[in-house]
């Protein structure tokens, strides 16, 4: 596959992953470190459908079903993890979800039917840039409509002040669980899109480090910002690759430079690129006007 297309594909998958984690960590304020685990659940569940039980219908329809399977499986996993763990706060929730991510990976590693440690091969090539970016757009629309309704506001209020939210008649546990399940489901949705483009899955695709990188994308863009999650995913996918082409020395030191750039950004702008703001037409117009005047 063409190098640039491959990068664009990864960026799209990470956008969906980051949007899902942004709902949990940014919008709802719950600290999850198990996102790669939900991604794995979705990827393997979707791929298992395509390999073992595809319906005799066109490929694109099968891809959609596979995505549905991935979303549902990960959302259910989200519920199973969320219902006991969301009673925990902050660091404890992070540790519990981290553990979950590792358990999933090790379980898959030992499941022969899913290829085990040899990886799962022969996944049909149904996904491509079109489908991935179609789902990016749909996910963005979903998120915008979610946060601008009473349920989204309820989820945001938990981040702002859980006790006050409870006292305003918001069932905080219910909405934490909903946010967690939908966020996990979105990671699950990214799974089949990724699997059917890559045509190969391996447990090592889903190690803990990926949970951290997705979290970095969300924090870099601005916790709670939808545009931030998109831009964060784009930057963190592109940056290490861009550095490859900036001369031999830079290429050798690229991971160091990458880390230093991240540290610098967090020192200079701890709230992330967008903070909690969104990139809207209105905001762009205002920015351009202010620049024009100044």
């Amino acid at each position: 596959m063409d190098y640039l297309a491959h990068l664009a594909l990864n960026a799209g998958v990470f956008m969906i992953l980051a949007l899902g984690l942004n709902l949990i960590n940014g919008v709802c304020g719950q600290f999850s470190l198990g996102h790669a685990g939900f991604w794995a659940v979705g990827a393997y569940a979707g791929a298992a459908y395509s390999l073992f039980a595809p319906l005799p219908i066109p490929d694109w329809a099968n891809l959609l079903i596979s995505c549905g399977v991935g979303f549902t499986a990960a959302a259910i996993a989200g519920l199973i993890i969320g219902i006991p763990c969301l009673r925990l706060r902050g660091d404890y929730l992070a540790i519990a979800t981290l553990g979950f991510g590792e358990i999933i990976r090790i379980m898959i590693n030992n499941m022969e039917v899913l290829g085990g440690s040899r990886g799962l091969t022969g996944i049909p090539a149904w996904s491509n840039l079109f489908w991935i970016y179609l789902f990016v757009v749909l996910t963005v629309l979903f998120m915008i409509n979610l946060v601008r309704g009473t349920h989204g506001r309820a989820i945001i209020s938990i981040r702002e002040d859980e006790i006050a939210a409870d006292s305003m008649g918001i069932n905080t546990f219910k909405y934490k669980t909903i946010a967690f399940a939908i966020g996990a489901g979105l990671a699950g949705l990214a799974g089949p899109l990724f699997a059917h483009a890559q045509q190969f899955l391996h447990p090592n695709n889903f190690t803990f480090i990926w949970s951290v990188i997705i979290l970095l994308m969300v924090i870099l863009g601005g916790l709670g910002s939808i545009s931030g999650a998109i831009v964060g995913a784009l930057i963190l996918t592109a940056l290490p690759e861009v550095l490859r082409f900036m001369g031999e020395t830079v290429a050798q030191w690229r991971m160091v430079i990458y880390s230093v750039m991240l540290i610098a950004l967090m020192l200079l702008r701890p709230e992330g690129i967008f903070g909690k703001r969104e990139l809207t037409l209105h905001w762009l117009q205002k920015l351009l006007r202010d620049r024009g005047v100044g």
Partner: protein
Amino acid sequence: MSLASTSPILKLSDLTIRFGGLTAVDRVNISLGSNDLVGIIGPNGAGKTTIFNMVTGLYQPSEGAIELENSSIVGMRPAHITQAGIARTFQNIRLFNELTVLDNVRLARHSRTSYSLLASIFRTKGFHQEEAVIKDRAVEILKLFKLEKKSHLLARQLPYGEQRRLEIARALATDPKVLLLDEPAAGMNPNETMDLAELIKWIHDEFKIATLLIEHDMKLVMNTCQRIYVVDHGVLIAHGCPNEIQNNPKVVEAYLGTSESSEKERS
């Protein structure tokens, strides 16, 4: 003035809570008629806020009953208690700081909103209709509290006094039958406190709801409340109209300590 209303809207009977060996609230009885304006006073650490926390479901009482309109609310989640009709403010203001003033009030309408999550995602007709109603109601309440011009500011950008007002507005937006105000005058200067007294009386007249007020500022309580309960060390030590309370020796003792002569009398 009728001291006990015929059928209380909120009734606390022998309410007790223990934290380990400490009995923070000990067999407290309080009843509130449907249009009463009642104060709870007492020194710091007397257990006033603890009573509020039990009524709103944040703490579970060790013993005793809490009844709203003759049905028990003990063991219910805070959110359900709010839905049943009890709203509160907090001693240390708890607004949703990063949300706009309007959104703070809109959030309070959540439990009175019926459209589903899917309706929100697909922007159905029902969603638009109900959101319009929510917004109208929120703006209406903000107008009553003279905050409508600031509805697009973030809550944390408001000056202190207005944050207090917004918190009360937000509580009222849940359509409560009983309003619990936890030290609303804390941190206010005497002028602001006087305005607040007017506001509390006005809310009482305008919304026709029962109000229970915890306060340190004696003047505020004496000016606004019809009846006053005095709590000290978790025990109810007096109950009556403001005049009776002012002249009650037990209350003076709780607030000012015992005089030498009265200690001699005891021993």
